[in-house]
């Protein structure tokens, strides 16, 4: 297996001058995962954690039929995977493909095996041994109040940036697309219908209701083609980016203020089922079609001049791909529902470590889907007008001058084949991922005749679960804000007080809505500034999780095994610091926010209101980045203080685990 992994990895790393087949990536990843799981993860499970099936888990000891319930290993694996898999592992690799397939692929595989999966596994283990405590609670207990507050504050900050950036991905996917907009608009009444079906007509029949919802959504994709072709209907669904952004903001407010059963819950059920189905389909499609990769191993943009987002391969490739390699958000899931449902301690290995490997594999599939496109097409779709030129002719001329030939006729034919008016300037990753997926699905079944259907199916899939994140995230953000505000005003902290609910919902929607509008107005396409901010924030959360993990390992074994979490932590801190520093202080305006301010102030239009807004936004982004940098430094210094104290013996090395209780769970109960 080790030889196979080395063979396939060197195959993708050393191949130059000819197209490589995607199966090399798939096998290199699969072999490395197998090695990592069999040796590294088992070593951590046996030597470091000493997982013990005789020890009763919180699911057994605190069993209540709700949160705490011993659950079958593979069912919980699927449940956990569905919870950690979001748009991140799909969109990140597509954006990072501007460097070529090699840097992103290596980071996805190595980062997951040595970093992401370790983080998820360690946090799951720690939470399982502490009665299912959350990351914030563990940070407070193990490091101190500063760590706990930092975790809460960072999550709130990430939520705001995350919702803005995923909102922007949807806006760019649906802009000017009557077919796509109609399909997504149709999911609203479908979700409402499902909500009524599940609440009043067939209570509790979630699978039945979801099957009905899925059939209706598929019908709406089919009908979308006729809507787009209709001269009278198409204008109703052909929206500008700004109109779509405002609609998403209004939707976010409504959906998070409405009762959950009406819109959010049915949409969430439907999107989770569709997500799992599409991930399986994509995996099977890549294996079946195993297309050649058209993008090279490395592009010229490793030097930092990329059109999709600016910045060198280090550190920006590692910031762009967070979920798929290592994602701090996973630590929230690993210390949320999952630890309360683990039946046996040894199940933490496949669930914590294994699920992350599967997520990493999804990221590899997304990388393949992005790289099956011709490089010229990839850059024409993903480059903003501000970089390549405002007309298709100037865009193709710019892209061809980089050495990636593409023509206006080729792009028109491609847009026509998928039922779109144009595919230029569709930044954000979703449309190019949809193109790649449609290409793979069409070769699996239906041929070119169905490519337009598959493209819009992929767009529907991406938008459906992104919008679920928007409404669920707004609601969660509101709860967090209320939790913070209750220290200042008791009524504002009450979730049953309607004025407080509306006010805090408006504040959260206003927060991410502001950044969304900023992204829409950004001449560089928005993704250039928002996605790195999101990546930095997400990696910061991973740094907090790894600090917690290191503290626990230090208390358990002294210095012996701290390298397991310290190595990915050191890498993340290096990456996050470098990226944040460059985003603030780089003298290149496309990268540094302050250089952008200088450039705008020196321009002839500096006095106009629009430029003043851009200047304010760049300063705001710089400040946000600075806050994130400060948070990393604070948490790290606080952790170092605790670690030093533990090693010197001046800080209590008490392990806050729940007491050992022997398991009485019978095998037939699992």
């Amino acid at each position, binding site marked *: 297996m080790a030889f196979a992994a080395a063979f396939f990895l060197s195959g993708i790393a050393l191949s130059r001058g000819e197209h490589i087949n995607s199966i090399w990536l798939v096998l290199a990843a699969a072999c490395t995962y197998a090695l990592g799981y069999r040796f590294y993860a088992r070593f951590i499970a046996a030597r470091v954690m000493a997982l013990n099936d005789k020890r009763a888990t919180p699911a057994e000891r605190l069993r209540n039929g*709700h949160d705490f319930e011993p659950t079958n290993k593979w069912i919980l694996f699927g*449940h956990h995977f569905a919870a950690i898999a979001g748009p991140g592992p799909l969109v990140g690799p597509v954006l990072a493909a501007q460097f070529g397939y090699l840097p992103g692929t290596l980071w996805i595989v190595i980062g997951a095996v040595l970093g992401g999966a370790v983080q998820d596994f360690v946090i799951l283990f720690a939470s399982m041994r502490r009665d299912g405590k959350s990351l914030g609670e563990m940070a407070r207990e193990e490091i101190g109040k500063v760590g706990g507050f930092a975790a809460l504050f960072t999550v709130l900050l990430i939520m705001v940036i995350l919702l803005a950036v995923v909102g922007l991905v949807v806006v760019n996917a649906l802009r000017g697309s009557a077919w796509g907009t109609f399909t997504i608009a149709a999911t609203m009444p479908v979700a409402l219908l499902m909500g009524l079906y599940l609440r009043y007509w067939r209570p*509790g029949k979630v699978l039945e209701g979801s099957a009905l919802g899925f059939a209706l959504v598929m019908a709406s994709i089919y009908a979308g083609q006729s809507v787009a072709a209709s001269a009278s209907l198409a204008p109703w669904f052909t929206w500008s980016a700004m109109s779509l952004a405002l609609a998403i903001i209004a939707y976010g407010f409504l959906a998070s203020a409405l009762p959950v059963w009406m819109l959010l819950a049915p949409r969430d*059920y439907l999107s989770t089922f569709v997500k799992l189905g599409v991930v399986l389909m994509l995996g099977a499609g890549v294996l079946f079609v195993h297309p050649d990769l058209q993008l090279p191993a490395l592009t010229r943009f490793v030097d930092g001049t990329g059109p999709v987002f600016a910045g060198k391969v280090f550190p920006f490739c590692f910031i762009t791909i967070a979920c798929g390699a290592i994602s701090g958000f996973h630590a929230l899931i690993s210390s949320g529902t999952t630890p309360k449902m683990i039946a046996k301690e040894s199940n933490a290995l496949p669930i914590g470590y294994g699920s992350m490997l599967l997520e990493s594999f999804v990221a590899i599939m997304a990388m393949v889907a992005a790289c099956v496109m011709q490089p010229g097409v990839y850059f024409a779709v993903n480059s903003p007008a501000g970089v390549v030129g405002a007309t298709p002719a100037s865009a193709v001329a710019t892209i061809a001058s980089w050495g990636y030939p593409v023509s206006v006729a080729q792009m028109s034919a491609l847009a026509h084949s998928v039922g779109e008016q144009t595919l230029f300037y569709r930044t954000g990753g979703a449309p190019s991922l949809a193109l790649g997926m449609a290409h793979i699905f069409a070769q699996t079944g239906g041929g070119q005749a169905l490519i337009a259907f598959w493209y819009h199916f992929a767009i529907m899939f991406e938008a459906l679960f992104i919008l679920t994140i928007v409404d669920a*995230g707004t609601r*969660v953000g509101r709860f967090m804000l209320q939790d913070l505000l209750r220290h200042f005003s008791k009524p504002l902290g009450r979730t049953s007080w309607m004025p407080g609910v509306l006010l805090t919902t408006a504040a959260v929607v206003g927060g991410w809505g502001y950044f969304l509008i900023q992204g829409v107005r950004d001449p560089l396409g928005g993704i250039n500034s928002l996605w790195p901010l999101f990546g930095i924030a997400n990696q910061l959360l991973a740094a907090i999780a790894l600090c917690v993990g290191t503290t626990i390992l230090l208390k358990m074994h002294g210095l012996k095994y701290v390298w397991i979490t310290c190595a990915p932590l050191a890498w993340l801190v290096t990456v996050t610091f470098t990226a944040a520093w460059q985003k603030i202080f780089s003298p290149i305006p496309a990268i540094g926010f302050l250089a952008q301010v200088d450039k705008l102030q020196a321009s002839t239009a500096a006095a106009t209101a629009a430029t003043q807004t851009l200047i304010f936004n760049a300063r705001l982004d710089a400040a946000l980045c600075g806050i994130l940098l400060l948070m990393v430094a604070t948490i790290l210094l606080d952790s170092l203080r605790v670690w030093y104290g533990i090693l010197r013996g001046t800080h209590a090395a008490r392990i806050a685990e729940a007491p050992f209780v022997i398991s009485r769970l019978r095998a037939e109960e699992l």
Partner: protein
Amino acid sequence: MSRLRNFGRFVLALLREIGDENAYQRHLAAHGREHSGAEWRRFSEERMRAKYARAKCC
């Protein structure tokens, strides 16, 4: 064939878990209650309140 049947059973169980149907059955068993529309609404409201108070992954 039996492997296929087992796999089908697993997929269905997974879908039921994700769709909260298993949790609902456990809830009925734990509290010794019968299924009804009102019971489902009570259960799902409580479950969703907890579910959507937690961050959703990106």
